[in-house]
């Protein structure tokens, strides 16, 4: 049983107009076996949270903490975080020219486990996982994400999730840009990874659509860098009907109150 704990997290980025605060005090606790959905309108800071957990250098944590079973995640480098068991399925996976998927997957698996995977079972595992996600076998020989469609890139992210077996998975808008079929395939992959019982999931999404396939235990609504409402799966249903509009006024009220 592991715990990923985010406490009063403040994060800013440097822009041409100066420093801009994106996350304004976020607290969340995720335990093994739980699925937390983070929902919110564009620009609310959802993806910033995901990238900050993974350690993207663009984001500066100004205060607060992230710990994994008490270990200070913020003190770890990007690769140390991954080896500690944090996985980020990226919203826009980058293409890495000249590096084949096969080479990449094996190198990453070796780094995460601290030893090279047994060649025969590994090849079989990769093939099986690719087949389940309906990724063509020839993708193994292609360069990482190069020339992949949006949907293929997302499937390859989930492929890695299934192969690397992290303690916590952060899915950054994995559902965006997917058609219904691809969404189902990807969701099944996440559910398989979850069924192992050794993973906690932070699912970041703009839409409620993916929540028909991946059932969240908790839903957190993000507006303007803060969690404005929390609840169980029923909150997602309500968002489906009402959208985010009612929070817009809420945020304005909060801002007005802060200024007063």
């Amino acid at each position, binding site marked *: 049983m592991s715990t990923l704990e985010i406490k009063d997290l403040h994060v800013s980025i440097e822009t041409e107009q100066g420093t801009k605060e994106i996350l304004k005090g976020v607290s969340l606790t995720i335990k093994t076996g739980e699925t937390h959905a983070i929902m919110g309108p564009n620009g609310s800071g959802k993806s910033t949270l995901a990238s900050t957990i*993974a*350690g*993207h*250098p663009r984001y*500066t*944590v*100004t*205060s*607060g*903490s992230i710990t994994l079973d008490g270990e200070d995640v*913020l*003190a770890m*480098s*990007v*690769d140390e*975080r*991954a*080896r500690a068991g944090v996985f*980020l399925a*990226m919203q826009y*996976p*980058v293409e*890495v*020219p*000249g*590096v084949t998927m096969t*080479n*990449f997957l094996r*190198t*990453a698996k070796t*780094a*995460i486990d601290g030893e090279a995977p047994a060649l025969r079972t590994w090849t079989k595992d990769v093939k099986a996982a690719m087949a389940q996600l309906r990724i063509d076998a020839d993708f193994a020989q292609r*360069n*990482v994400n190069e020339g992949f469609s949006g949907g293929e890139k997302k499937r390859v992210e989930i492929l*890695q999730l299934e192969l*690397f077996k992290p303690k916590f998975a952060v899915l950054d808008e994995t559902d965006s840009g997917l058609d219904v079929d691809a969404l189902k395939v990807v969701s099944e992959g996440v559910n398989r990874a979850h069924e192992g019982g050794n993973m906690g999931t932070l699912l970041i999404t703009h839409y409620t659509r993916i929540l028909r396939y991946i059932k969240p235990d908790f839903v957190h609504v993000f507006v303007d860098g803060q969690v404005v409402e929390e609840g169980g799966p029923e909150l997602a249903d309500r968002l489906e009907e009402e959208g985010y509009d009612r929070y817009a006024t809420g945020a304005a009220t909060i801002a007005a109150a802060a200024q007063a």
Partner: protein
Amino acid sequence: MTDITTEKARIGAPSAQPFIDGFTEEGESLSPINAGTAGSTAAAPSAGPLAGDSAKSHSHGGGVGIPDSSRAGRLTSYQLADFKPLTGLEEDWRFTPLKRLRGLHSEVLSGAAPAVAVTAPAGVVVETVGRDDKRIGQAGIPEDRVSANAWENFAEATVVTVPAEFEAEGEISVVVTGAGEEASAQHIVIVAERFSKSVVVLEHQGTAIVSENVEIIVEDGAQLTVISLQEWNDNAVHASSQQAKLGRDAKFKHIVVSLGGDLVRVTPSARFTAPGGEAEMFGLYFADAGQHLEQRLFVDHAVANCKSNVLYKGALQGRNAHAVWVGDVLIRKEAEGTDSYEANRNLLLTDGARADSVPNLEIETGLIEGAGHASATGRLDDEHLFYLMARGIPEDVARRLVVRGFLNEIIQQIKVPALEERLTAAVERELAVSDN
């Protein structure tokens, strides 16, 4: 305040170095490399009352060394005397440190030529011939003083002929082994006769101070790949003019791989003489501290309906690692239906390295399929590193993966498995040098 240090924020971030050597706020200073050489003082117009230091800093060499207005107008001659002594301010020498040419431009090239050993499948004809052989001078004519110097001084030439319609099984290996540190001249002729198919690997190794002319004739319908490997010892100096003449429907692939040597300057060209020809020119170079690796190529679209594609990729690491790439593509008025693209990409792995990249494209007709040129020089992409590191891969391993991947695009073009493996290993060794 949480201690997320600048350590992580600076992965691959640009250095704070304010300017590039040889560049001022106003742009490039011509030929910083050759400033102060004996030749350049003679040519620099510094004595006049109106040409003080301040005036000079605003001029591009004070009227000396103005680039040719067109590549078509470049002087070519078999006679050394037709080329003026070099000053380093000439357009085509401005990036080359003349001092390090060890006399290739100024001395009689009387040293022993590097030994040539050819291994070829049965059926391929290998000859050593004298200067008066009629095949010499068919594909090439010197375009610069160093090449003309070799032309004037070579004693004998190696001629490799792939007979008409012959399809060579396995590659033809031409191993050129340096014979020492006396300036020398070399001449090699490769003839791919009509409808033949072959791969020639030209390997340069050992220690030499050599100017080399390689003439390549690709006759009608022939398919020829020439791979020129420069894996010299650290003290070698090598200038190589590799000129190819392409017949009707000829397919020519040229790959330059420069890894070793103190100064290596390869000047390949492909000239189309009949329609339907195709030229692919690739290059890979890895410049270490102090190394000067230069490549200047020329594609001459002189006739209609030919295709060319050029891609050179280089990595540089260490102080004063210097790479130069100049790509001249000329599409003449007659060359309607031309399809052409050239690109150069450089990865600067450390501070203190310098890459000069100049893609020149001259187009004299609008009736073409396409013409493009591109150049990009940069550091490792932070997003590539982040992606790999976010999968647990340590930074040094991630860097190596990305650089290897970057150069692999050229290695994949070779299609000789044993050679591909050897070059992959050579790139690994280069990467291991400074643990990038």
